[in-house]
């Protein structure tokens, strides 16, 4: 893939996010080994609020849980919610963007107005109220709600690209060679559109993860899913801020920011390589 050579930002972004994903996937084995069989959220396993030591690199929290494994579990669930909701949002965004971009006319105007509406209004309070008043919120339901409010950002990114790809002469050449609409969409437009789907996907993932972390930080959402937001919530309510329990609060924040920064680097890298305008300046 030429993109790795052309864009250092993209490469750095991909490396970081892959590392985080690998760590999240290894979490069950690592935790089983480190806590010899216990779950990382089990209370009272160790002494409370131990300082960092060899077997507890980040020490333990006021409930006697090993902070490192807590964060590993938290990362796994945060990524899980982020990628589930992100994929749902991206699928909706791709379908609606293709519909609006390819068909144009009043469909385009309608979808654009709705997506601008969703993009403009502050969605977080609405999600918070919904999650508050739903008694049983599982991962899927939460992802659905988050996806509903984040597809708009991605589709707004994608629609102009599809509209411009549709106008390209090679699409008209395909029509004139007897291609059906479906063939054109999948064989002519989609391959050149892949980078923009990924841009939309990373917008959706960062958007949903930020919203989910905010919800959990305040104690809303499924209690049985210990994402990083939940870890921060425990830290907050156990007075970690006052006692200056840095590892319990700073490390989850750093991990989350790593995810957001890496996804953004990927976006910026893709944009620099695939955006014809910027290419003009780099002279290649």
């Amino acid at each position, binding site marked *: 893939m030429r993109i790795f050579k052309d864009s250092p930002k993209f490469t750095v972004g991909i490396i970081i996010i892959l590392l985080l994903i690998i760590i999240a996937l290894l979490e069950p084995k690592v935790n089983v080994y480190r806590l010899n069989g216990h779950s990382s959220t089990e209370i009272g396993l160790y002494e409370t609020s131990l300082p960092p030591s060899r077997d507890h690199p980040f020490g333990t929290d006021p409930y006697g849980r090993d902070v490192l494994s807590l964060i590993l579990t938290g990362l796994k669930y945060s990524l899980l919610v982020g990628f589930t909701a992100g994929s749902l949002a991206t699928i909706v965004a791709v379908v609606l963007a293709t519909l609006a971009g390819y068909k144009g006319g009043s469909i385009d*105007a309608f979808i654009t107005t709705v997506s601008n509406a969703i993009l403009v209004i502050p969605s977080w309070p609405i999600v918070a109220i919904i999650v508050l008043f739903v008694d049983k919120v599982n991962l899927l339901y939460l992802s659905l709600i988050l996806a509903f409010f984040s597809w708009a950002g991605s589709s707004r990114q994608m629609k102009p690209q599809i509209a411009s790809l549709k106008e390209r*002469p*090679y699409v*008209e*050449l395909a*029509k*004139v060679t007897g*291609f059906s609409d479906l063939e054109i969409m999948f064989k002519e437009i989609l*391959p*050149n559109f892949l980078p923009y789907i990924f841009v939309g996907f990373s917008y959706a993932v960062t958007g949903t993860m930020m919203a989910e972390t905010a919800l959990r930080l305040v104690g809303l959402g499924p209690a049985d899913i210990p994402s990083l937001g939940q870890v921060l919530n425990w830290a907050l309510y156990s007075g970690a801020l006052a006692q200056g329990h840095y590892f319990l609060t700073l490390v989850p924040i750093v991990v989350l920011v790593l995810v957001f920064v890496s996804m953004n680097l990927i976006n910026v890298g893709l944009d620099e390589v695939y955006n014809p305008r910027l290419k003009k300046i780099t002279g290649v």
Partner: protein
Amino acid sequence: MSRTTENLLELKNVVKIFTRASFELAKERVVYALSDVSFSMDIEPKVLALVGESGSGKTTICKLILGLEEPTSGEILYKGIPVSTWLRNYMKDYRREVQIIFQDPFETFNPFYRVDRVLWTVIQKFGLAKDKNEAESKIEESLEAVGLRPKEILGRYPHQLSGGERQRFMLARVYILRPKLLVADEPVSMLDASLRAVFLDHLKDFKKNGISCLYITHDLNTAYYISDYIMIIYAGKILEKGSVEEVIRNPLHPYTKMLITSIPVPDPTKRWTDKVKIDIAQLQKVSGRETIKGCVFYHRCDYAMDICRDNSPSMKDVEDHEVSCFLY
């Protein structure tokens, strides 16, 4: 152009309106891209040039013929049958017989695939070869016919070819397909002058292989070089039609005269003697006409009369070629 034999292609009073609809309850702006265009090409293969400035509607005509756009009113007949019927019932045959070459060589190739795919899909889609070897030989033969060396060209990506090579690759595609009618939309305007002639020669030779060509351009010189018949179009209306020698040597319509005198001659001894006068009408951006009333050329015409302002002249036979102007 004799009327008796059945026509290969015929446009009857074609009108095309583009409306700029917008959801925010704004009033729609109506633009007449084409107003009452009629012309025909008979069965016998020829090169017909359609010459007009940018924004004159010539690309719209090309899109209508290829079914990429629908006419607002009027008919487009290929071998007497409306294009819409062809595309509904015999789409494959129509696509086989009516083909196109686009203007921008950098955009007619999908950057994702190697260039060979263009030729392979044509062979697969229309079943032009029984097996792989026949397909390969057909491809190589067509590339050599347009002066490209298969070994150097095949297997490469579009960005690895020059503009000239890519445009000739599209010619090879036409050679394989052997269509009846080829619409060439400004095929050489992006090529260097030194490469244009060889491309235009191919368009001329297509006649020998039974391929008629509708050559769309803004450049009267290249039209004069390769076409047998010529049509001048301005703001969506055809102003003059006829054999190319007739129209160039003895232009009738004021606009055609203006065009011919404005073209610089590559000969220092024949420099312009007259001066062009500017008029305020040209100040505004030239966009499609908003009304259908009156002659399209009224506001720029030196011979404009009152009659020209409100009613538009119809096509009249004068000195064995046709012109639409009240002077005649």
